[in-house]
């Protein structure tokens, strides 16, 4: 009798522990997502990826359609080569363009896909031709100042 109740408690404890791990995996973690579903892989090279990280979301029209699988550096073209793993339920045309966006002013960076008009669809291992890298704030400010200086010089010339 004593051993039976003890076994019951231990059994309950182990079950509760496993339920806690499952809760963490499914409700807290992203194990329930489409990560395990069918995916296909597409490559894209960017001149600058900014703060993009592996596992960042890939969105089209704001909807999550995949994740960044891998980020590498191409020593031949000196560009970042990003591997995207896209949900197989969502095929995209061959001339789809990819651009790196920021969600919100200070939010994380993600890749936005803009579908093109090609009739052929992207296959596993294809590369995206049209890409636009991340906007680097410093470059933007530099450009702005440069333009300012330019237009000021123009004005000066015009006055002469």
């Amino acid at each position: 009798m004593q051993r039976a109740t003890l076994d019951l408690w231990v059994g309950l404890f182990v079950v509760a522990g496993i339920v806690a791990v499952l809760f963490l995996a499914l409700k807290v973690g992203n194990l329930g997502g489409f990560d395990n579903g069918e995916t296909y892989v597409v490559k894209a090279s960017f001149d600058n990826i900014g703060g993009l990280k592996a596992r960042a979301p890939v969105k089209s029209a704001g909807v999550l359609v995949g994740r960044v699988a891998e980020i590498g550096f191409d020593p031949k073209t000196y560009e970042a080569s990003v591997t995207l793993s896209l949900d197989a339920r969502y095929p995209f045309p061959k001339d789809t363009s990819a651009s790196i966006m920021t969600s919100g002013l200070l939010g994380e960076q993600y890749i936005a896909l803009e579908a093109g008009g090609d009739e052929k669809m992207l296959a596993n291992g294809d590369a995206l031709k049209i890409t636009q890298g991340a906007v680097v704030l410093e470059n933007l400010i530099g450009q702005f100042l440069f333009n300012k200086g330019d237009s000021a010089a123009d004005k000066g010339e015009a006055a002469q």
Partner: protein
Amino acid sequence: MMEALLEHVRGIGRRTVNRVWRMGVAARFFLLVFLHSGPSFQRFHLIVREIFSAGVLSLIIILVSGLFVGMVLGMQGYETLQTYGSEEALGVLVSLSLVRELGPVVAALLFASRAGSAITAEIGLMKATEQIAAMEMMAVDPIARVVAPRFWGAVISMPLLAALFSAMGILGGYLVGVVLIGVDEGSFWSQMQAAVDFKEDILNGVIKSVVFGIAVTIIALFEGYDAPPTAEGVSRATTRTVVTSSLAILGLDFILTAFMFRGV
């Protein structure tokens, strides 16, 4: 004067050599427990009883502490995140800090003071009342009969307790953040799910708790087995268990974290 100084220096040397010597004995003891665990798996009810006394009896303190740690995290996190207008990230903050760090570490600290001290006291007292010597007389291997089941019972319990701690903490954070303060429920969970990775975060947390479980249990068992067979000796060994295993947990946590999370 010179004599006293010399004695002092000798004392330092003696204590250092003593520490190193004890380390060696502890390492040999660890190996011995592993080699003698075979028979305790054949008599699994011994392990089940130890899971009961190390795991089930620690449940209350783990669950209640987890809940309160999560609730405090929810409150403090909201205070800070609110100033940046990103209180939806509360779920991320609560879950990541619990799953990666607080769950394994705090659960292990509680486990060391709740179950580790009990193990040391029990074995120390068994030794003081010569039960262990009696077993040896009867040709019963005390390591296989007494020590190994306690080791495995505690090592099995530890990750389960840490997972329960994290789960309770996240529920506590949800309770305070969403139910009391009113953070949006959808973004609380969805941002959490987007940020927490199963392999990177949850599995690494489980690995941490297993390592802590092994460290705490082996320290508790060794201190008990090595305790001088007196009332004072047992009480000192119990104190040493809690102090040493707490330090071991925090030191190991730093090493494991440095290995696991070095940024992308």
